[in-house]
């Protein structure tokens, strides 16, 4: 085992030059997608790379995979500078884009996977064993012979994951791996990734908009906003960073006017159900509500990571 | 009517966004015009008169042809309708309070109007600047040509509409597309003026709808016809347009019924 980090980014930045306007009077403006990002990821870590749309997530992913050359800063992935050693690096990492497939659209999944084996030069014997394992773990058997274009989104994503893992990469980079999937597929993929990380110690870096992915999979969160690092640490720390209030949901027996309770702010009403944001301890508010109306049910919601992030993103920078 | 005017305007605007592609297309049309004109100039240098054409007629034919390629879409592209049928998006189109044929015609006329103004006319102008083309002084010839070109656009639309609807019955329309866009240039006068082909091939080609899309409008431009011949040619174009559009309307009815029965 080497102690070399899986990813080391130091003061990493990336600008884009935009040309707009008519051909002869073009104006060039420079937009910064990633301003200054520094982080290190150790082998075996599972890290979520989060941020609002346009924060620089995709640009970072493209730099990590060597598709884009950084404008400034220093970057090594598995000890290699991605943009100069793209091909060498490609053989050691697996990449999955949730928005588009890395499989060949018109080929049956089986052919796509066989091609992948040749492109990554996986020995036949290893391939057979690994394909068997992945077919079982990702339940690929029912659609191995189906052309990729006919697969459902969930099937395609499982196929993509298999293709990205056939060469047993040390680092798996996932860009929105669960986007558009149903709950069952999402859960299956999360459990698979968790198992992969536990058994093979594969480093996983993922971007996502689904925070259940993060809660289930990632021990560490890197938050990027406006091209800079906004947070790097565990999930609990993220909660502390922008404490979000708890929500009280009251189901009255009959619809009523918005409740005005001590230590609670009314959020919205839907039929007999009302949502309130707690600004103080819940007991006085609940007592007051019960005193005024017959109550059918009560629920107290802890803030989710969505609420925390929503507050963080809204914060001026 | 206001609806279709809006669809027309939308078709026009949509193509106006492809500025670089339009410029590139203009370049391609001009280059091909020059190459084809080069061959025909050499030919007419060896044989100054062939079946009523001379060198000026031939190179004018070439540039009118290049100017009409985009508006008539004789070499493609097919209507987007075909793709919508393939993906099933057509189901939402059928729910619109408009006849699909009229809707797509208005959209395609918008495209043709844009292509005429920004690709056809500039291509011809480039040809006229580079080569001694035959420019009619008689406004009647311009009028005859404009009418013939407009009818050619209608025929071009009707053919591509029928082809797109074939997607309701055929699983894979790529083979049909390749044949359609092969027959177009060969039988219309794009490849060579039809007057150069021997009989009975030339007469046979003239009997097909494609000749009404290029060869006849070119001859109207060149003033090759007596007024009765011109009227007969325009009537033939109108008959092709009417027949193909009627067939399109019939196919629409059948296709809609099929879509409703199969649930899209």
């Amino acid at each position: 085992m080497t102690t070399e980090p899986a990813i080391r980014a130091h003061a990493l930045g990336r600008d884009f030059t935009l040309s707009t306007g008519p051909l002869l009077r073009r104006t060039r403006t420079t937009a910064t997608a990633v301003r200054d990002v520094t982080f290190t990821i150790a082998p075996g870590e599972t890290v979520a790379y989060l941020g609002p749309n346009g924060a620089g997530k995709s640009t970072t992913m493209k730099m990590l995979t060597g598709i884009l050359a950084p404008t400034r800063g220093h970057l090594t992935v598995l000890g290699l500078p991605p943009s100069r050693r793209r091909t060498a690096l490609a053989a050691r990492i697996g990449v999955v884009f949730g928005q588009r497939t890395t499989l060949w659209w018109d080929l049956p999944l089986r052919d796509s996977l066989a091609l992948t084996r040749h492109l990554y030069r996986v020995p036949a014997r290893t391939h057979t064993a690994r394909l068997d394992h992945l077919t079982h773990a990702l339940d690929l058997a029912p659609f191995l012979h189906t052309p990729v274009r006919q697969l459902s989104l969930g099937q395609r994503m499982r196929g993509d994951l298999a293709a990205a893992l056939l060469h047993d990469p040390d680092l798996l980079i996932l860009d929105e791996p669960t986007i558009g999937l149903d709950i069952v597929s999402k859960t299956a993929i999360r459990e698979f990734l968790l198992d992969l990380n536990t058994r093979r110690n594969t480093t996983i870096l993922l971007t996502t908009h689904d925070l259940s992915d993060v809660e289930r999979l990632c021990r560490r969160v890197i938050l990027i906003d406006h091209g800079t690092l906004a947070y790097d640490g565990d999930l609990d720390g993220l909660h502390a960073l922008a404490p979000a209030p708890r929500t009280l949901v009251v189901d009255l027996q009959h619809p009523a006017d918005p409740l005005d309770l001590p230590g609670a702010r009314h959020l919205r009403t839907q039929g007999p159900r009302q949502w309130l944001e707690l600004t103080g301890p819940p007991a006085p508010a609940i007592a007051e509500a019960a005193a005024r109306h017959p109550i059918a049910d009560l629920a107290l919601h802890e803030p989710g990571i969505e609420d925390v992030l929503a507050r963080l993103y809204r914060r001026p920078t | 009517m206001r609806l279709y005017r809006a669809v027309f305007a939308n078709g026009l605007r949509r193509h106006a966004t492809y500025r670089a592609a339009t410029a590139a297309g203009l370049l391609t049309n001009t280059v091909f015009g020059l190459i084809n004109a080069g061959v025909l100039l050499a030919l007419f240098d060896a044989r100054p008169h062939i079946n009523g054409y001379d060198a000026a007629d031939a190179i004018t034919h070439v540039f009118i042809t290049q100017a009409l390629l985009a508006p008539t879409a004789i070499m493609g592209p097919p209507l987007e309708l075909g793709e919508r049928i393939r993906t099933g998006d057509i189901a939402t189109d059928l729910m619109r309070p408009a006849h699909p044929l009229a809707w797509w015609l208005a959209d395609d006329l918008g495209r043709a109007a844009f292509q005429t103004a920004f690709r056809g006319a500039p291509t011809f102008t480039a040809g006229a600047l580079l080569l001694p083309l035959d420019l009619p002084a008689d406004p009647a010839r311009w009028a005859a040509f404009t009418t013939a070109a407009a009818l050619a656009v209608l025929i071009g639309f009707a053919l591509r509409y029928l082809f797109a609807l074939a997607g309701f019955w055929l699983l894979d329309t790529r083979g049909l597309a390749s044949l359609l866009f092969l027959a177009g240039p060969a039988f219309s006068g794009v490849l060579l003026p039809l007057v150069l082909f021997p009989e009975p091939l030339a007469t046979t080609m003239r009997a097909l709808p494609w000749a009404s899309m290029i060869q006849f409008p070119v001859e109207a431009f060149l003033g090759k016809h007596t007024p009765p011949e011109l009227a007969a040619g325009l009537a033939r174009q109108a008959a092709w347009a009417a027949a193909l559009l009627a067939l399109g309307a019939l196919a629409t009815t059948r296709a809609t019924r099929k879509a409703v029965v199969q649930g899209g």
Partner: protein
Amino acid sequence: MADTPDRRPAPPARTYLRLIWTWSRAMAQYPLSLAFLGLAQSLSVTIELIAVLTVFGHARTLAGFTATEALLVYGLAGTAFGTADLLIGQVERLGAHIRSGAFDTMLIRPVSPLVQLAADEFSPRRLGKLLPALACLAYALATADIDWTPARALTLPLLIASGAAICCATWLIGACLQFFIAEAREAANSITYGGKALTEYPLAVFGTDTARWATFALPLAFVSWQPALHLLDRPDPTGLPEQLRHAAPAAALLLTALAALAWRTGLRHYRSTGS
């Protein structure tokens, strides 16, 4: 450790063959469609041939070339472009791949993106263009008045290979434009398909100026015109020296080097702009 993947990249030629084999097998799943599309491509070549014969039927000779000699020119051009179309014709879809993001997925694999691009969706139907052109070439070689010295016979494959290489390079250079201008595909067509149209007729037909440009600026003259002059052992009607007809391999190498440079520059541009 025999069971770990070989981390050296796969050799490009083997990758290419593997890719086109896989694609051919996939296309062969629909034999009827494949045959139909191949037939349509053959027909397009046949129609062009009819046009050439029609023109020569009226003119008898153009630029001193008879119809049979014109078929030699057409056969050489058709073979060269047919080969380029078969092998790397798909590179013209670069712009579409960039827009759809598919090009990025080619960059994350440990093999040359050029090989992946050229082999993408390879279809044997493209043989439909090459085979009639080859037949035309064979017919013209057999019937035209060629003095078959051993030297001439031996240079023939070299001339054909040079012509194909020039066409491949032209095609690639045209495609590389799309790294810089996304909608350049049709502009590139005026070079690639325009070049094809130009080489299908004896070049002198287009006049001395065009012949000069097509010799020294974009060396398309070496695809069909100079080889035909060499095979027929005829002086150049545009007055260029006869030694030039031996320059086809050199022109091919030069243009291939230029195409490689265009690809590298384009790829670097893409990876530095991400557009």
